[in-house]
């Protein structure tokens, strides 16, 4: 910010005598934040961003097959600007998490997200990435939104390629509404939160509560009403 602070002041000092002469420039360069120039600049920047979204494919399961199908010739993601699957997070704009994420992979996903430069977006593709899906088990992350921020959830098991393309086009719509003036709002990222869970403990408990058949499980104290042997040394509180 130190560099850019000086530049507007000098240009403003130059323009000031002219702007006092003609009343046109305040609407263009003026003090109000969404001026003609910034909105046009927003348009150009958003146009270029949304039409060259490079996905970072984080495919761990069958959803990745559909993601590959979406990139292949029949449905051809490149039509919409996802020209190149970027297998390096440093050159990627949108993270597509396709498939289930075990806890052992959670730090990997978190690091890949932290390595992606701003501006960045993320798609949670499929039931497992969005909520854990059928894998309500000891080893599986119950929704990647407990780990990284998610912009678009694509439902399905797995979603069709059309679903993924629709999700990516929703991200394009989201980009269309962004403004450079509110850049800090859109792109807020605390350095102190890097590598930490996205949600706090209460929120994770809320997001990952048992549902469906899982309500028959008792999470903490072992199985409840079965005739399985009690082995007290296995029941750690």
């Amino acid at each position, binding site marked *: 910010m130190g560099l850019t602070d000086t530049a507007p002041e000098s240009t403003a000092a130059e323009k000031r005598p002219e702007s006092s002469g003609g009343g046109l420039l305040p609407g263009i360069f003026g003090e109000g934040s969404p001026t003609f120039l910034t909105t046009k600049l927003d348009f150009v920047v958003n146009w270029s961003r949304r039409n060259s979204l490079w996905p970072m494919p984080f495919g761990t399961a069958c959803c990745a097959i559909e993601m590959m199908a979406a990139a292949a010739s029949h449905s051809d993601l490149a039509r919409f600007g996802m020209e190149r699957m970027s297998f390096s997070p440093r050159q990627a704009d949108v993270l597509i998490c396709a498939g289930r994420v075990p806890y052992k992979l*959670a730090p990997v996903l978190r690091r890949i997200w932290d390595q992606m430069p701003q501006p960045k977006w993320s798609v949670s593709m499929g039931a497992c990435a969005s909520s854990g899906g059928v894998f309500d088990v000891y080893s599986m992350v119950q929704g990647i939104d407990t*780990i990284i921020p998610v912009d678009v959830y694509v439902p399905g098991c797995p979603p069709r390629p059309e679903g993924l393309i629709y999700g990516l086009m929703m991200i394009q719509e989201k980009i269309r509404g962004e403004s450079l003036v509110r850049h800090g709002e859109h792109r807020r990222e605390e350095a102190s939160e890097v590598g930490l869970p996205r949600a706090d403990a209460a929120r994770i408990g809320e997001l990952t509560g048992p549902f469906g058949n899982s309500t028959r*499980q008792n999470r*903490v104290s072992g199985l409840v009403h079965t005739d399985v*042997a009690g082995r007290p040394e*296995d029941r750690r509180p």
Partner: protein
Amino acid sequence: MTAPVDQPSAPVDHPSVVGLKESFPEALQDVRVTGAGQTVVRVDGARLLEVMRWLRDTPQQRYDLLVDVTAVDYGGGRPLEAVYQLWSVPHRRQLRVKVELPLERLEVDSVVPLWSAANWLEREVYDMFGITFHGHPDLRRILMPPDYMEGHPLRKDFPLRGRFTRAEQTRRALAKEVEDYYLPGEIRPGRDPQNLRPQSQGGAGSGPAAPDGGGE
């Protein structure tokens, strides 16, 4: 097709069963044939290594391929069973060997000295069931994280969702660095991970994680 699934006392003409009855009459505890025609032999856990060595080296047996090592927890206080699936390439014959392990003593000899394939398989059984394999060169968890605190997930009394809350599981998962899942030597570039652990000749770089390398 009306035969029961398990026939404890049916006459079994499997050549290995005949041989085992002659050579190890007191170690052979049970012989069964499953509905699919699989011959299952249960042997004494204390003499497992001896029986396995005989099965591998005797010319009439020659079980030179260890297909799988796994275990079963039947629950209800019953003992766990370690299961060894063998295949003889020369004789084109298969045999399933089981060992019963009481819950209070989940220990058995490792068969890594006989088949190197048992290395990772026994690590998996140790990880999932908590069975200790004596003489294993590198017995540590293979699927779950090395410092996994919740127990052994495939036991019947392990709750499906784990023992900790989801928040605690997430916190623990993200507290790890990616590199924590590997030994220091494994992430050094240019090393062949297969040859990482010197099993026969103990080099200087065997590292501190070798469990029983101190005697030499």
